[in-house]
Structure formats: C-alpha cells, structure tokens
C-alpha cells in the first residue's frame, strides 16, 4: 500500500465522518483513527522480515485538506510540481540525492520527477534537515504529492 492510497483512505474517512477505519489489503493493514487535533495513521505489514510499523503519518485535523504529513509546527513539505515518476537517485545504483537526517540548503537537488522524459530536478527551497522521504524510487506521483518533509533551520 502506498502513500497515495493511504491519502485516499484518509480522504474517505474525512468525507464519511467515520471516526476510525481499518483496511487490510494483502499483507498490509492500515488503521486510521481520527482524533481531536491530529489523525493517526499506522501501516503495519504482516511480513515477518519487515519492521512491524512501516510508516507513521500524522495529518492535520478535519476539515483541513489536503491531508499532508505535518506533525509539528514549522515543518515544510516539498511537493511534486508535476505528474510523473519519482527517482531518488541520479542513476540506477547510485546513492540517493538525499537521506533522512541530511542537512540541505536552497538549490540542493532532492530528487527527479520524470514526465515524458522531461527530467525535473526538484530543488530544496529552504535550509534545514530532511526529516521524511515520502515516496519510493520509481513510484508514480501526482501533482502536489508530498515528496519530502524538511525541518527548517
């Protein structure tokens, strides 16, 4: 189960007014609980090899939309400016442009989103630290998909 699917579920929860939702798809189970201030989304996988909790994503309270991961004040998100395919590294087998914990400055290339062979270098606009990478290498992204969360310094 990927981030867009989880976002869809969060939206479904908001639209329906239901307080809690649990969905099992294959080995993945998602439980979304709507609280007063934050929503909690926990994705677990039944696979023994993987860590029991893959993603913990918090989203702002209803009716704020779209549900972007923003657990603490002042965090900045980097969103995709176009529909395309996300690449974490400049070439297959190369190291990722950035990793969680890396310090970044304005102009630092964070990833590439390819749309019809137009390679869009997504650059950081603030100085800070990468605290989350939201998309897997090779995954399709939509316009506005959150790619990174940065804590400005």
């Amino acid at each position, binding site marked *: 189960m990927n981030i867009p699917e989880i976002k869809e579920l969060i939206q479904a929860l908001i639209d329906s007014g239901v307080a809690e939702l649990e969905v099992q798809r294959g080995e993945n189970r998602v439980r979304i609980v709507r609280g007063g201030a934050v929503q909690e989304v926990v994705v677990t996988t039944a696979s023994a090899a993987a860590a029991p909790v893959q993603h913990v994503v918090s989203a702002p309270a209803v009716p704020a939309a779209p549900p972007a991961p923003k657990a603490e004040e002042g965090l900045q998100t980097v969103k995709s400016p176009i529909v395309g395919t996300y690449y974490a590294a400049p070439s297959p087998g190369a190291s990722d442009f950035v990793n969680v914990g890396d310090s970044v400055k304005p102009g630092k290339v964070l990833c590439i989103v390819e749309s*019809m*062979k137009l390679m*869009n270098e997504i650059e950081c606009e603030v100085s800070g630290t990468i605290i989350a990478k939201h998309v897997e290498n090779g995954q399709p992204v939509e316009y506005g998909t959150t790619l990174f969360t940065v804590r400005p310094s």
Partner: protein
Amino acid sequence: MPFNPDLVRAAFPGRRVDFYKETGSTMTLAAKVHEDGAVIIADSQTGGIGRYNRPWHSAPSDGLYFTVVLRTTPLPVLTMAIGLAVQEAIARYTGLHCDIRWPNDLLANGKKCCGILTQLHEERVLAGIGINVNHESFPFELDAIATSLRVETGRTWPREALLIEVLNSIEAFLRLPQDAVLAAFTQQSSYVRGRRVAVELNGTEVRGITAGLDANGYLLLDDDNGRRHTILAGGVRPCS
C-alpha cells in the same frame, strides 16, 4: 569534415552558439548557460548521457551532439514537440522518415538514430539532442539497436546544415498549441495505438497494447489482463 560553428552562428545572428571539440556532456555545460535559445555543441562527448544517466555513444566527428537552452513554459508535451521537430527536420533535409517511439526516440527501421533528453533546470529547459549522422557503423553492443542517417540513406550529410534545419524546426514546433502537438504526434508515431509494448511501471514490467494518448499526451496501455494504465515516463519498448 570538421564541424564549422560559424555556419550556425551566421544562420542565427544574436544567438549564443558555443562549440567544443570535446567535452564531458553538453548538458553539464548548458546548465550554466542562461540565454534563451543558446546552443551548446560538442564534436565529441566523453560522458554523453541519456535518460536516467545512461551513456550515449558520442563518437567524434560523426554525430550532432548539442543542448538547446529554452526559457519556455515546460508543458509536458514539450518533449514530444521537440521529437516531432527533429523528425521533421531530418525528413525535410535527408528524405529519411523516422518513426517516433513515445515520447521522443527517433527510429529508422526499428533502430534508434536520435535520442532526446530534456531537463528542467532552474526555470530553464535544457533539451539535449543526439543525432547519429555520419556513423559508418556502431560498436557491437549497439549494432542491433542503433543506426545513423548515413547507414539508412547511404551517404554522409553536412552536420551544420542539418543542425540549422533542426533549430528552425524546434522554433516552429514550440509555437504549436498542445492539441496540435498531440494530433501531429498521433499521426507520426506508430507507437501511439495498437502497438504491443512492455514498460516498467512502479518496478514491475507490464505488457500490453497501446491505446492512444490521453488529453495531456500520456500514453495509454491496455495490459494483458484488460487493465488500462497511463504511462508517465519513458522506457516503452516493443515486445512479443
């Protein structure tokens, strides 16, 4: 024949035209160039790149390897418009009609003779174009997939005149509205409809039949299980 950049400069007065006998990649040089329409040409590249940093064979004196800097709105179909522009320029200049593999590889007899890589870099589009012009043959590992205008037409071509033709054609195609680009592409590419192809989607190979372009120019694919996919990025290839 050595490349004479002055012929190109004379055809486009006021335009920046840089020529390098040898360089790593024109894309790297173009990243530092800001003038709209500037052209960075190399007679040979030691590190020519294609999509996703794959190497591009850039033999000295045989090909046209250049990057055009465009301060233009990067419509998604821009990359298709550039492919169409190069296709038309080659057809007009040499008489060779190439097929276009979505979104912009030019093929002659099923082999690639031109590759195009576009990068969005600091508000500019860098359009890197490699055309195999006067290559007599290719290294063994490329022989089955690459061809040149010379191999296909049986003669050599002056690269300066071809480049001038290509640059004029790019200017004309970039003025077209999106629906005109999509209509031209649908007409010119055998890959748009009814073509059996394989493509990597989200890490998995999907095989199926192409089913036209959507309103934004993305390629539609009906897979073997009857599911429709929208192809966002390159990597489409024919399959059994």
